[in-house]
């Protein structure tokens, strides 16, 4: 669709410089090639329109807000250039949020990758009740996030935590009130780990399902041939399986990175960024500044800092994917 046939007419974009003037132009639109272009772009139009309306317009609107002094109650906003971005960079909490966002996204991504891969291989093995287990494993992903996170909030409760009570009964920690009683959402390191853990718990079944779909598409005879050639499990995984399922892996990773980086709900419901910014991430800071605090412009600017974090990761993934396709 993107290449004109040799010796044929130029693509539509260059028609104004075509030799032959009006007669040539008019006749070109009636050629089969032109009709093919038209048909192709017509098919493409809904997708372009969809992306434009649902992604492009909100993104442009975010940019507009980020460069204005818009507030939730002010109908008229002034252009302030990059003031809101400068304001974010002057905010000490912003740097904490950037650091936490990176730790949260990378840490959760690695854990989900490891756990998802392990789970996918386990689920690939034949065993009794495999279908039921597969169905059960997607429950965390399908549960409404508010419900599952509130469940975790109870499990991390400082006084009634079932995790702590179990650890205490196993004599791994002391009783309630003792110095080694973990306060999951109160100690800075533990709090960040806890919110990351919930994200991993919720997301790793998705990683496993994506991998499982890829693994089932690898022809068994290829793996058998590798086995016959004496390849170990890790060699088969690295040299055969990963290259074959790479496109699925990259798309899955891209989705997961986007979802994790922009995940507001888990942190908002568990800690709201506290204590003292220990779990503050860019989405919570943007929400509390822009919506609850009313400073829409500054909130939008903070949220747009997600973009440079996300863009290189996605570009890298998609370029690698394209290289592998050719």
């Amino acid at each position, binding site marked *: 669709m993107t290449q004109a046939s040799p010796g044929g007419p130029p693509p539509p974009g260059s028609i104004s410089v075509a030799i032959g003037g009006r007669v040539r132009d008019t006749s070109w639109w009636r050629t089969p090639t032109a009709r093919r272009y038209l048909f192709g772009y017509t098919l493409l139009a809904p997708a372009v329109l969809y992306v434009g309306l649902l992604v492009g317009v909100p993104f442009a609107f975010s940019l507009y807000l980020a460069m204005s*002094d818009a*507030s*939730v*109650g*002010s*109908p008229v906003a*002034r252009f*302030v250039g990059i*003031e809101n971005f400068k*304001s974010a960079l*002057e*905010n*000490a*909490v912003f740097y904490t949020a950037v650091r936490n966002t990176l730790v949260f996204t990378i840490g959760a991504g690695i854990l989900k990758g490891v756990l998802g891969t392990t789970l996918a291989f386990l689920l690939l093995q034949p065993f009794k009740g495999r279908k039921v287990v597969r169905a059960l494993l997607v429950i965390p992903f399908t549960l409404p996030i508010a419900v599952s996170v509130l469940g975790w*909030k109870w499990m*991390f*409760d*400082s*006084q*009634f935590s079932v995790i702590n009570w179990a650890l205490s009964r196993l004599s791994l920690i002391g009783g309630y*009130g003792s110095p080694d009683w973990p*306060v*999951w*959402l*109160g*100690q800075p390191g533990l*709090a960040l780990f806890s919110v990351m853990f919930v994200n991993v718990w919720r997301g790793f079944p998705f990683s496993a399902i994506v991998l499982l779909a890829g693994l089932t598409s690898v022809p068994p005879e290829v793996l058998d041939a590798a086995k016959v050639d004496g390849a170990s499990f890790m060699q088969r995984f690295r040299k055969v399986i990963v290259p074959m399922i790479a496109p699925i892996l990259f798309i899955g990773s891209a989705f997961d990175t986007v979802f994790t980086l922009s995940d507001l709900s888990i942190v908002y419901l568990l*800690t*709201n*960024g*506290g*204590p*003292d*910014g220990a779990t503050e991430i860019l989405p919570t*800071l943007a929400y*509390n*500044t822009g*919506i*609850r*605090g*009313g*400073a*829409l*412009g*500054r909130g939008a600017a903070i949220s747009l800092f997600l973009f440079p974090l996300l863009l290189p990761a996605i570009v890298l993934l998609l370029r690698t994917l394209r290289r592998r396709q050719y």
Partner: protein
Amino acid sequence: MSERRPAETHPTTLSRRGFLTTAGGAVAGLTLADMLAARQAPAQIKGTNLRLLIWSHYVPAYDVWFDKFAKEWGDKNGVKVRVDHMPHLELPARYAAEFAAGAGHDLMYYAGQILTGQYYRNLVDVSDLAEGLGKKYGGWLDAAKSAAQVSGQWYAVPDFFISIPVLWRKDLFASVGMGEPKTWEDLRKAAGQLKAKGHPTGMQFSHCNDANHNWRALMYCYGVKETDPTGQNIMIDSKEMREALKFAKAMYDEGMTPEVFSWDDASDNRFLASGVASWIHDAISAFHSTRLTNPKVFEQTFVVPEVAGPGGTWNVGEPNVWAIWKFSKNVPAAKEFIQGLADSQKDAMQASLGYNMPFLRGQYTKPMPYLGNDAKLGKLQDQEKITAFLGFPGPMTPPAQEVVTTFIIPDMFTRVARGGPIEDTMKWGVGEIRRIYAKHKAS
């Protein structure tokens, strides 16, 4: 303020919701008809619709009463009323969406987070209604203006505020030879001694509403002023603030455990009901929930409106106000509804089990509904004399609100409690607050 919902601790034969629902229903049935008969709304609102958005009250029985009131008011005045309830933390996002769309509810409610200053350009001036209510009921409390006025004009009508007193255990205090606490020093001393006996205290150091209220109560009692009375100039960089931080650090070290860093709005309720807490600083819904979940603890739980500090006695309340969008399709009915509700304040307060503290001076005539009939809660009948709101002594301006929503004050206390130097903390906190105020001034 806390998430005061049932099923938090021990089950009882009579559920909390059941108790509250029954109580509220009985009150509603007895008095609503008389109340509604007292006032006739103008004919122009007959046959119209009124959509209103309100929070989900911490006392479920109040919502039952309110919905019944709304229906009966609508029936009496020929207005079809639709009431939507929403958790208060979700309200700001909803209002932002309604404002952007230029459509939504005819009458809306700011609960806790007061957005009058942010939206006033798009709100109906309700000065006539507010001043009429003031004249009728003995005048508004000074604190009411903080939440409802901008430049002397009323853009919202105060409904009630939530008081956040000290709930303390008489038996535990007696065990260390102490009686009713009068000062913050008393609370600190009791917590220090009782922590050793397995009964620490706790105030939230986390990112939740209670953290914002409780530490401000301590600050104001220490004489800290967030801004000047105009709300334009920051006053927090003071000796008093340093003293408040120092005291909080000592109180944490002596009387609390690290769990306070993880607490949400409901954690202190559970802490009290579990029998562990020596005292907490929370709204009376914690008192009511303990009544249902742990009667033995409840028997020994008493209320002090607020304790004193070197700068006086100030309790930080949480206001709730009504406002009307300019794009509301039914302003007359919305105003009439507010008037009708204000006229039924006694029933509303009774239905809320004494939770809804009035903003109008005339409504503090003793005995007040519910509070006047409860031996322990009766002390709250003078609460209007010590109540201040966030931003004190300035009004709840947009920058004051942003300081609240970004939890700068609780974070300052957290840093110091964790051992951070007071001067470094002051430099950081005051710097953040200055940055917010400067941004609002520039825009």
